[in-house]
């Protein structure tokens, strides 16, 4: 369950009040008459879908009904910031100190990785015996 800070209401509210609306900062082609099929297709259908830092648009649908953006880690589900439409994120995948490893936070606050990892040498050796 997300606890999301709405940048307009200035309050943390529960996930159920919000709706995810997909990738943020999509720019509609500025010159529609001279836009190729390739560019239209990219604009309409192709998305970043990263495992890690992602910028996405949400709407506070049963609150102020305004759209805003969230920077969130799609592997850990950590919400890093929320900011109003028209503004740029202050945290991106290139920001230092952003957690990049895959995995999930477990109930006791620890960290658990998913799938085989290159450092799991012991596991691999065991499996190949």
């Amino acid at each position, binding site marked *: *369950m*997300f606890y999301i800070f709405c940048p307009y209401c200035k309050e943390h509210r529960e*996930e*159920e009040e919000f*709706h*995810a609306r*997909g990738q943020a900062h999509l720019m509609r082609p500025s010159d529609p008459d001279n836009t190729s*099929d*390739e560019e*239209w*297709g*990219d604009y*309409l*259908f*192709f*998305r970043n*879908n*990263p*495992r890690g830092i*992602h910028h*996405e648009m949400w709407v506070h649908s049963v609150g102020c009904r305004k759209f805003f953006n969230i920077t*969130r880690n*799609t*592997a*850990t*589900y950590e919400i890093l910031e929320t900011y109003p439409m028209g503004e740029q994120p202050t945290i991106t995948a290139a920001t230092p100190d952003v957690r990049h490893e*895959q995995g*999930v936070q477990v109930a006791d606050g620890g960290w658990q990785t*998913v*799938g*085989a*990892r*290159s450092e*799991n040498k012991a*596991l*691999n050796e065991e*499996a*190949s*015996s």
Partner: protein
Amino acid sequence: MQRYSGFGLVKHALGHHENWERQWRNPEPKKRYDVIIVGGGGHGLATAYYLAKEFGVKNVAVVEKGWLGGGNTARNTTIVRSNYLWDEAGRLYNHSLDLWKGLSQDLNYNVMFSQRGVLNLGHTLQDMRDIQRRVHANRLNGIDSEVVTPGQIKEIEPQLDISSRARYPIMGASWQKSAGVARHDAVAWGYARGADALGVDLLQNTEVTGFKIRDGKILGVHTNRGDIEANTVGCVAAGNSGVLANMAGIKLPLESHPLQALVSEPLKPILNTVTMSNHVHGYISQSDKGDLVIGAGIDGYVGYGQRGSYPTIEHTLQAIVEMFPMFSRVRMNRQWGGIVDTCPDACPILSKTKVKGLYFNCGWGTGGFKATPGSGHVFAASLAKGEMHPIAAPFSIDRFHTGALIDEHGAAGVAH
């Protein structure tokens, strides 16, 4: 390979079942293969199996970062049906259904395919119009499908609430008799055992960390167990397809979402069929063990966490109680989330890419399990011949630029 039979069961009972052969090897990666399949789930293993069995390509490796069938193959609601609206999708899923019918015999492995039928309920006039349209389209494509009235529904599934007291009264349904459910793990294991016996190397705990690409041609993959060469690589990685595509410098029109399912405590047999409703949005069947297997919608946001949110569980169970009020007191046992790669038109991508020799089979979204044999079969044919199989050809990635989408949101059963 040790063949399984009733006689074998009796023979091994005498030895206290201690002498069964291992179902597959755990080999060291070779330096070079003819074909590498990235992803050891149902679709990947099926692809490897058909490559070796029907298309004579036996020097094949399946590279899996975790263990076999540990992703969505182990995390779905096991429904098999083919009542899709459009010709292209109907052909693909019906090809799959045809293969399901003989799969246990073909694999010499009991996949427990049970053709108990699927009901797709309609709760509004528009639902019923859509159902009639889909049923007619199905019949023109040779898929068994019929429209049933509430009275007939009551005979098929007596526990459904067809009264007018319901918040969304049931007005009718589409009924596909030949649809059903199968044992999900057995599908992966059966294909794995079959492929291994034909000489396919199943490489578990081997994570692809990059692709070796030169002059627009694929030369192999980098893994945490060294580099492996091949001139043909097929990626069948479901929710992680986007991550792989990124490594190869390709963009896919996919978004990965968590899709949750739940099972209840085991009950005595109470459901005859699979019941699905798009309108109240939930689907339910009963496993042979007795637990109710329940699913519904995806979480709306992109997520790779293999877990979903509580509001989605709540909506799911509301839908189930709307259809079957008597289940309101059933306790849920387990809940899980799989990562589904959803496509804008709710149809999969089986396609070549701009990198020569690199193929993707992905975007199955919320409905990949039913397609496991068919997807594996047509993808194997495409990899072996270097040309997309006629059934797979319409599912090319080009359709997102040409506009030839195959919109199956209505038949997909899960809104996204």
